[in-house]
């Protein structure tokens, strides 16, 4: 088995291994192991924690270079400080892609507005910057998704 994995190491090109990717992976895995060790969580609670860990590792790997990562980190920290999750505050601190109630459709007519809501920290950006941040966010999200899929693959075999 070890030989198999080493074969993979030799044959695969190292070009995909960006240092930020490694950071993302290690952070995520550490968080995962931490989550696994707490056995008192329900399934839903654990999945929520894993999701938060995913976004956290994304934000940490990028650091403060990007507006969206700063906004994400801020959200994460404010969420962690919430002892009693206030439904009103939780709305502002909601992680992207979180459980959302059915939104009134007329509020999302404008595409740029929709994008602003999707990208963390996008509400206070002009269109130009929004597109830039969206591109970086998409790239990072893709990496994170691939990482999680890899974890899934390696675990669930």
């Amino acid at each position, binding site marked *: *088995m070890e030989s198999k994995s080493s074969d993979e190491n030799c044959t695969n090109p190292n070009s995909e291994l960006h240092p930020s990717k490694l950071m993302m992976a290690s952070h995520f895995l550490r968080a995962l192991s931490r989550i696994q060790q707490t056995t008192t969580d329900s399934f839903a609670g654990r999945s929520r924690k894993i999701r938060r860990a995913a976004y956290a590792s994304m934000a940490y790997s990028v650091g403060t270079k990007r507006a969206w990562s700063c906004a994400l980190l801020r959200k994460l920290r404010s969420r962690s400080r919430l002892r009693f999750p206030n439904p009103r505050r939780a709305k502002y601190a909601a992680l992207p892609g979180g459980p959302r109630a059915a939104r009134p459709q007329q509020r999302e007519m404008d595409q740029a507005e929709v994008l602003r809501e999707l990208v963390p920290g996008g509400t206070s950006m002009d269109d130009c910057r929004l597109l830039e941040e969206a591109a970086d966010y998409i790239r990072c999200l893709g990496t994170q998704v691939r990482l999680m899929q890899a974890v899934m693959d390696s675990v669930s*075999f």
Partner: protein
Amino acid sequence: MEAKENNQFGLEKSHGDHISSHSSGAAGFVTPLTSSPILSASMVEAFFAPSLWNHHTSSCPMNFGESNIQTATSGINCVPIGKPVAMSNRGMLPSPPPGEFPHSLPHFPVDSGFIERAARLSCFGGSSFRGISLFGPSQSMAPPSDASKDVNGARVLKAELNVVSLPVEHGTIKGITTNSKRDRSISHVGTSNNESREGNFCEDGQERHTGSADAAGNSSSSDLGANKRRKATEEMEKEKDQVLRALQSSTETTKNNTETKHKSYKHSGKNAKDNSEAAKEGYVHVRAQRGQATNSHSLAERVRREKISERMKYLQELVPGCSKVTGKAVMLDEIINYVQSLQRQVEFLSMKLAAVNPQLDFSIEGPLAKNLLHSHGGSSSAAGFSQEMIYPQVYSSQQGLAHAGISSMLNPSDAFRRPMNTEIPMTSGYKETSLQMHNSWNEQLVMQMAYGANPPLNSQVINRKPDGFTI
């Protein structure tokens, strides 16, 4: 500050040597000025003050004719003489260009600080000259001495701009007929010096860029002047850069007004535009193309639109399947869908991970991370991998059992995993399937727990069971 200017200069250099090389046309006549200063400081200031003042006030789109009148009557004798002075840029201006200034150049006393100021203000000549050129022969001219050098530079600038080069013979030297105006303008200079100067600098910077555009395009007939100007304007580069970043829109209006007036000139609009785009840095120097609106607002709009289209192109590459999509709205829709699908995928995967991994430990991080990133598609390595991961927590005797348990648990999940591994954007129906999977996983978990309860040695697994199987 100097360093910044230098950096800016270096950045500009990186854009193209031709850009930096012929920095600003205005600088072209700085060296002649400094080398043989013949203007008094007051003359220079008076000379330029009206133009400064006018430029300051012309930040908003205004009647160009008015500004021209003002600049013209300010007694600037910087009417373009005719053909650009090829030799005037470097070093002395030994003799007036042939057939241009018939009069001799009176010499003015040189102040200590005059050279500096002359150098700084000389660039204004270009901008003011431009305004004047439109007026042609009706312009009044200040004493030729102060104009000679400036004219050269201005001429060069004008040529660069393909502005009308009017014969200077027509210009009557009214001396300083506008003395009153100058006085007023001098006072104005004091107050609005920085702004206007910066504005003018910007103009000159733009001129420089347009000159570079010309040089690059080799399109204008004034290439000669452009070439000469290039060498001479390097000294002014630093100062120019300093103010280049300042008001740009104010200068753009006048400059673009000039262009619209002189559409007859074979200015390679396309070329200039390309070069101006190439020269863009923090502050964008934009050139209005032939036949385009030259409002300051529309220019800023155009800059903004170009930036946005640039970023949309980049996003097109990022989002899969969007290379054929044209149009901002459709593209935005695609982007939104993609982001939403990615976020849903993260959520889904986190649920999966929560369900799948109660038995597994992720203590091996380094090699795990590397392997993950290398082999997220390869199942063969995954097999070996899972064994690695299971090994530290499961007794060797139980290893096969755990393996079997996990694999049995995950057999149904394989079917679910395959659609996930593809990059198909998930639709809203996804969530329902995930819920179904969740249920099935729960069953599998129960199965696993039961399985794990049998071998008494799998204590870690047993400890993780939430409902507390007794050993």
